[in-house]
């Protein structure tokens, strides 16, 4: 129901078409069977379509279509369960690098846009999203700057050509580029429940050059805030796609499955739950669109809207996926159906960049309670 510009509608249509044809859920199943969590070929494809540079300015190799367009792509990636570094690299790392600007950052942003490199953000140090709890730090030693710390849930960290690490220097936050192959860096890849890559990264006295340090202090805070807001809104959009896929499949099941001699969609107990889910998805879709628009307009509402969108999507994503399995009954529990795949992806996306509890807490604090 949301209004789209002509450009945005083109992006939405081409994303739906391209992913349905080349990356349907059967493709995801094939990757899972082969034990492949990289889907390496796709990065070049997405770059060719301009998607890896969708939020990056043309001056550094992007196409500058903006976050609303990025959200439309993410929604289709969610719907098709496509494995790609779109969110981790093109949106999150891309936003950070474009926001920092300047030589080094612009170089890596260009690499992302052209599909030459995957950059992953190494932020988290706890099991829950706590961007303010950073112990990883840079120390000045007699041999120069040294970085030490331990990062977890580095999404696509095992596939990355470069890590964008959040650390402290002189007790102020900073962002720096780290080569995963550098001495002292240990990247341990893990396959998560949704068959996506997320690494833990151990940093032990890693040598850091001043040129690796991209931003520091209040400027780093600003960059990180923008990056996380963009990440939240686009992750929520992907999660919306997952939830819509689960819901659509369920609504179709209600229209076709017979029990007690009737279509189960005739039962009011199920009709009302389905309609409630439809309403929740509709309003959540509006909230996510509002958050994405706010990013494009650089509005002061970005922080509030992106957090509300992420929190609301966590709640509605869970509702959609739990209803999907319950309304399908026993068959919903089988691996043969896609519902379990949606449910696992939804769970992972809920944790990614903070769950409902985290962001609701922020909103409450902001209101002074």
């Amino acid at each position, binding site marked *: *129901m949301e209004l789209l510009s002509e450009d945005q509608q083109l992006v939405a249509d081409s994303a739906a078409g391209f992913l349905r044809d080349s990356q349907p859920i059967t493709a995801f199943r094939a990757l899972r069977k082969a034990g492949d969590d990289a889907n390496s070929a796709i990065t070049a494809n997405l770059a060719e379509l301009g998607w890896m540079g969708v939020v990056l300015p043309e001056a550094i190799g992007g196409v500058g279509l903006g976050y609303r367009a990025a959200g439309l792509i993410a929604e289709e990636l969610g719907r098709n369960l496509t494995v790609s570094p779109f969110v981790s690299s093109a949106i999150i790392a891309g936003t950070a690098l474009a926001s920092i600007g300047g030589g080094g950052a612009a170089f890596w942003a260009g690499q992302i846009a052209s599909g030459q490199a995957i950059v992953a953000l190494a932020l988290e140090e706890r099991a829950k999203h706590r961007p303010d709890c950073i112990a990883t730090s840079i120390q000045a030693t007699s041999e120069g700057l040294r970085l030490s710390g331990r990062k977890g849930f580095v999404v696509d960290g095992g596939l990355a050509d470069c890590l964008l690490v959040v650390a402290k220097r002189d007790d102020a936050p900073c962002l720096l580029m780290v080569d995963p192959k550098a001495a002292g860096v240990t990247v341990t890849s893990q396959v998560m429940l949704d068959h996506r890559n997320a690494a833990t990264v151990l940093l032990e006295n890693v040598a850091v050059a001043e040129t690796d340090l991209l931003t520091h202090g209040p400027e780093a805070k600003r960059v990180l805030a923008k990056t996380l807001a963009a990440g939240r809104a686009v992750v929520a959009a992907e999660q919306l796609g997952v939830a819509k896929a689960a819901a659509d499949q369920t609504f179709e099941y209600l*229209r076709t499955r017979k029990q007690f001699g009737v279509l189960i969609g005739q039962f009011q107990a199920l009709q009302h739950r389905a*309609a*409630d889910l439809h*309403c929740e998805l509709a309003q959540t879709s509006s909230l996510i669109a509002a958050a994405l628009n706010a990013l494009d307009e650089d509005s002061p509402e970005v922080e509030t809207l992106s957090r509300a969108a992420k929190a609301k999507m966590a709640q509605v994503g869970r509702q959609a996926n739990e209803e999907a399995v319950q309304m399908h009954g026993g068959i919903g529990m089988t691996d043969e159906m896609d519902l379990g795949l949606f449910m696992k992806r939804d769970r992972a996306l809920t944790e990614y960049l903070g769950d409902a509890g985290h962001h609701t807490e922020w909103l409450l604090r902001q*209101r002074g*309670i």
Partner: protein
Amino acid sequence: MDLETFRSDARAWLEANCPAEMRTPMGEDDICWGGRNFVFRSPAQKQWLHVMAEKGWTVPSWPKAYGGGGLSGDEQKILGQEMQRISARPPLQSFGIWMLGPALLHFGTEDQKRHYLPQIARGEIRWCQGYSEPGAGSDLAGLQTKGVDTGDHFEVTGQKIWTSYADQADWIFCLVRTEPDEKKHTGISFLLFDMESEGVSTKPIKLISGASPFCETFFEAVKVPKDQIVGERGQGWTIAKYLLTHEREMIGASDSALFAKSDLAQDAVTALGLDETGRLDDALLRAELGQFLVDELCFDAHLDMTGAYMRAGHELGARSAELKYLGTELNKRRQSLRVAAGGSDNLVWEGTANDTGQVAKDWLRSKANTIEGGTSEVMLSILSKAVLKMPG
């Protein structure tokens, strides 16, 4: 006119014409309903209605020929923003504006439009809506009030219930079964008549909030001239459904229009205080407030998006049920949290302050939100069939 010129003109005009007393927060008693018997609370209220009606801005979207402002969707939005900017009160609220007007614009004859619409726009005639009956609530089309064709009149006999402000209204738009041999949905007509007609009587119903916004309305052989039918005979249900769509959009949107959005968080802090970590001293209330804040942001965004969608010329159709369901369920939560946040202070029913008991009364009033204009369950059934295409 380009929109920025419109904005600056509207701003200057409002600045010059909106009395200072009409720029303060209003309670339910401050609403201007218009009508023959309306008693203005102040000269400023009367003046504000007068100048806005002259300008056509009591009904900014209606064509100028019928007393409206002839504004485009974007201009209406700007006017709304400019009024909000100076906290200008709505000059006039009425069922004529919200419901009958849109129905006449869509289904009325040219004569009917020229006769009835300007009266609504100027606040001269106050309308009420005769829909529900004791035996026809959620099953509205089961209504039994009959209109017998006596040649030059319909003779209307029967009873309506939940007629909002029937005791204060001048005219009624009323669903009446005029074709008893037709099927349930095709035997109904949409009639207009004067509440002063012989045979009409009303009786207010006292609600749990203490207020009586609704009446029972009785018709005993009321004579209604035949040109006071809107649309064709038997077309009443089509018009009623069209109107219900408007009503649902309105009740859904009344989230902000009809109920003051008080600062729930501040109220709770005042009543309960903060604990040593700076959090509200009630974990469960705090958690519920948090979830409410998220849902409120979400619904507000949805209203915004839906509004833009409609201003771009799209119809909501059955999806108006979505707004009605979400908006009213949310408002019930808001009022529950509001009354809980104030603790025992909000239990006071009678006292000296003139807003005594208002929070509790609003809370009780809000329980009707998910019933009136179609229950939440009816909304979910509509969505399930019309949007999700569920069987049977």
